C-alpha cells in the first residue's frame, strides 16, 4: 500500500482510495453497525421473549438440521445464557463497527452471527431469504475492504500499532 505516514504518527491509512470510495465504505460500515445497534434494542432481558420465539423457529422450521439439533438440545435448555450472549455480541458488533475499530474482526463476528440468524429463521413463514444473503454480503464487503480504515479509528490507530513491537499491536494490525 502506498502510504507515506511516519512511524508513530497517526494519520490516515487509505492508500490511494478516492474520497468517494472512502465515504462509500464509511457509509457501508456505519449502516451495518446501525443494523446491529437497532436490533440489540428488542432483545429484552430478563425473559428475552421475542428472541426466544425466533430461536424456536430454528427447530420448528429447520434450515440446517444439525444446527436445529444444537438449538433444541443446547441453546433452548440454556436460553438465558445464550440470549445474554446474543445481546452482548450484537451490541458489541454494532459498537465496534460504528467507530471502525478492529473492523475486520468484528465484521467476521457479525458474519458468524448473521449465519446463526440465517440458519434460525430463514425458513420461517414470511421471511425473505435475500435479507440474510444481503447481510452476509454486507459483512463480506466490510471485511474485504477493511472499511474501518476509511474514516474509522483503524485509520488512526494502524500507524501507531505499526510502530509498536507488542504482540497486541501486531494482532490488532491483522484484525483491522
Amino acid at each position: 500500500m502506498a502510504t507515506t505516514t511516519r512511524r508513530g504518527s497517526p494519520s490516515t491509512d487509505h492508500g490511494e482510495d478516492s474520497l468517494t470510495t472512502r465515504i462509500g465504505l464509511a457509509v457501508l460500515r456505519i449502516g451495518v453497525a446501525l443494523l446491529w445497534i437497532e436490533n440489540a434494542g428488542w432483545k429484552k432481558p430478563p425473559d428475552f421473549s421475542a428472541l426466544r420465539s425466533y430461536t424456536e423457529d430454528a427447530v420448528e422450521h429447520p434450515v440446517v438440521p444439525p444446527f436445529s439439533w444444537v438449538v433444541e438440545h443446547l441453546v433452548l435448555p440454556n436460553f438465558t445464557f445464550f440470549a445474554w450472549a446474543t445481546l452482548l455480541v450484537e451490541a458489541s458488533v454494532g459498537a465496534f463497527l460504528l467507530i471502525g475499530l478492529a473492523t475486520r474482526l468484528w465484521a467476521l463476528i457479525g458474519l458468524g452471527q448473521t449465519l446463526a440468524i440465517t440458519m434460525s429463521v430463514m425458513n420461517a413463514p414470511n421471511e425473505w431469504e435475500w435479507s440474510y444473503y444481503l447481510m452476509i454480503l454486507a459483512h463480506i464487503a466490510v471485511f474485504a475492504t477493511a472499511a474501518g480504515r476509511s474514516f474509522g479509528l483503524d485509520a488512526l490507530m494502524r500507524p501507531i500499532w505499526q510502530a509498536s513491537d507488542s504482540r497486541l499491536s501486531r494482532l490488532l494490525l491483522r484484525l483491522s
Partner: protein
Amino acid sequence: MTRHPLDRAAIALGAAGVVSLGFALTTSGNNNFVLVQGLGLLVFPVLGAGAVIGGAMGQRGIVLAAGAAYVASALIQLAQFGRSTNWIDGNGSTVALLLSLGIGLLVVGLAPRPAPPSADRQAPR
C-alpha cells in the same frame, strides 16, 4: 494551529454523542435506530460536549473522563434495561451506542503520541 489527529477524533466522537440526541426525534417504537430518551437526553450530549472540549483543548484527561463515563453509563444501562429501574430509560441499542462512544474515546485518549521535538535541538538548516 494544527490539531493532532487523535484530538480531532475525540472531537468527532464527542460531536457524534451530541448529535445522537437526534435519535430522540424518531417516533416509531420499532425503527428508531437508537432509543434515546429520559436521562439519555442528558447523558449523550453532556458527555459528548465534554469530549469535544477535551479534544479542542488537547486535554486527554477530559477525553478519558468522558470515555470512562460513557462506558460506565453503558454498563449501568446494560444492568438495568428490561427492569423497573432504568435510569437512562434506554435499551440494548442505547447500550451499544454508549459503549461505542466510550470505547472510542478511551482508545483515542490512551493512544501513545510521539514526543514533541526537544527544545534544545537545532532546526536543520
